[in-house]
């Protein structure tokens, strides 16, 4: 297990380094002139040269990349001052350290993702198991058609409709907003409720469909038939035998979804004007704030890679047949 984990972490580091390098080169080596972007409309060549020098942009790109990566671990000295250890440079648009902004924004994304994931996992898997248990009946058909529609819904449509109905139509809730859970758990909950619901509607369909087909497949396996022949109750067979086999693929997809959501539930955040990482990515794109964008990319790809490792480890835990080698 330990050797497996060590190997996976090593592989993950390689992936992260490669992705960060590709991203960095694309951002800083292409003729997009980062300094020109950060300089604004009225820009003199002198000011441009100064910015280039201050940001270290006058050096070759590989050197810049090396400084950038080193800065993340040991900090970095700019002519404007020292940037302490996790240094992702300074934002082009507000001249603040990027890391501070990321730390600021992350709780919002975390809240959306974790809350939404709990809802869609529980409800989605629950519906899927229900549909499998009542296979072929109206319950199954009802949920199947529901998930077909749910699968085709888009956050940018459902989200707006939810806002229109729940907030400005019925006045049941306020506009979604983020309040730190440490300060006011009640407000945190109500502020996040609509994003969670909307995010869940989109994902539930996928999970219920997958759970249903996995359960049906498992229920026709030999070991389940043996269990039934032994005279075990329906419930035991369903929850102890079939369920366990169906779990592994669900965990895989869940890990991947969670990983990509941590990198910023972009459209959700945009629809509900929540200031998380995804929103930060969008705004830094429109302001061509490359250091911020680069940092969000790094965080997003790290999240995905970590999620993959966790999934693989969990897989072995759930399904003893999987050999880790």
């Amino acid at each position, binding site marked *: 297990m330990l050797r497996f984990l060590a190997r996976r972490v090593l592989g993950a580091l390689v992936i992260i380094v490669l*992705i960060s390098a590709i991203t960095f080169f694309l951002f800083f080596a292409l003729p997009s002139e980062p300094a020109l972007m950060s300089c604004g409309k009225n820009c003199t060549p002198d000011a441009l040269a100064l910015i280039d020098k201050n940001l270290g942009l006058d050096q070759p790109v590989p050197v810049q990349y090396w400084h950038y990566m080193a800065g993340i671990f040991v900090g970095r000295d700019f002519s404007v001052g020292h940037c302490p250890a996790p240094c992702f440079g300074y934002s082009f648009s507000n001249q603040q350290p990027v890391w501070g902004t990321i730390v600021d924004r992350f709780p919002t994304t975390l809240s959306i993702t974790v809350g939404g994931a709990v809802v869609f996992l529980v409800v989605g898997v629950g519906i899927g198991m229900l549909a499998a248990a009542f296979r072929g009946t109206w319950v199954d058909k009802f949920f199947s058609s529901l998930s077909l529609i749910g699968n085709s819904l888009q956050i940018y449509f459902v989200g707006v409709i939810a806002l229109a109905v729940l907030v400005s139509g019925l006045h049941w809730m306020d506009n979604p907003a983020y309040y730190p859970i440490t300060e006011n758990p009640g407000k945190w909950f109500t502020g996040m409720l609509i994003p969670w619901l909307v995010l869940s509607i989109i994902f539930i369909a996928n999970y219920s469909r997958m759970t249903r087909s996995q359960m049906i497949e498992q229920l026709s396996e030999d070991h389940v038939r043996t269990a039934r022949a032994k005279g075990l109750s329906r419930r035991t067979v369903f929850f102890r035998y079939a369920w366990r086999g169906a779990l592994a693929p669900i965990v895989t997809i869940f890990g991947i979804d969670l990983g990509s959501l941590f*990198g910023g539930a972009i459209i959700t955040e945009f629809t509900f004007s929540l200031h998380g990482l995804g929103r930060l990515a969008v705004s830094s794109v429109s302001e061509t704030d490359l250091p911020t964008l680069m940092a969000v990319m790094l965080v997003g790809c790290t999240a995905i890679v970590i999620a993959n490792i966790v999934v693989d480890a969990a897989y072995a835990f759930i399904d003893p047949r999987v050999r880790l080698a």
Partner: protein
Amino acid sequence: MWRRFKRDRSGVVSAYIVAFFFLVAVTAPLLSKVYGKNPTETYGLDETGLLNEFGYPVAPNGGISGRFWFGVEPTLGRDVLTQLVYGIRTSLLIATAATVLCVLTGVLVGVTAGYIGGRTDYLLGRFIDLLLAFPSQLSFIAFTPVVYSLFVSPGKETPTSLRVLTLILVLWVLGWMGMARLLRGQVLSLREREFVEAAKVTGASPWRIIRKELLPNLWTPILVQSTLMLPSVVTIEAGLSFIGVGILEPTPDWGRMFANGAHYYESDITYIFFPGLAMIIFVVAFNLLGDSVRDAFDPRTTR
């Protein structure tokens, strides 16, 4: 196969719906001529009595009337129906082009990796892994402006045709891996089968084996995967335009209508309904079509 597909009623109906959307996209200029309006003219600003002083349609339900079938857009007062028709045209053009490129690349890479195997397979596999590790949504957003700056120097306006090209390019580069991986697996298992062995023994060239022995067996996964890919590309493209990195004003775009709708929903909810319902119908029909195609080609699968 064809007969089996025709017996599947939901499949046939969704095929008609999908065909209808493509027909609308292709004949958009004709439709707008027959209907007598175009997507760019600001009817609400040019004529009084269509929009009120706050820029919202005077007539109920978003200004739906005999003249404006789907209502009038708030603020600018453009015709919603032609906006939608031309928006579908833009989105489907981008999505179809990107999907075709993805499928071609995926087939090429997947078959190569699967058939040649060995080191080529290993390298291509790692390359696919690498591309898959990119946070997809984030990368679409982050790299689109980078590609824009490839074509146009900073500070200048990007022409619409280049924007369309850029979107196709970005969707292509980050979209072909699933197909490649699927086909590699299929080829890997086909390669060991007797008929391929036989063809090899009789001295057929690799190109012939791929074309005559492998490809006929790959049509089903290719077709099924493509029908599932296209609607997802449509929704991704719409998402990009929704957050403002895709197609910009004044070019009509499906996704941008959602962005506009999100601005106006408090006073005019009708506006967002038409693009929204159209998209749901489109995606549902396409997914059903994908299922039916799979059932028709591969009778072993049960739903």
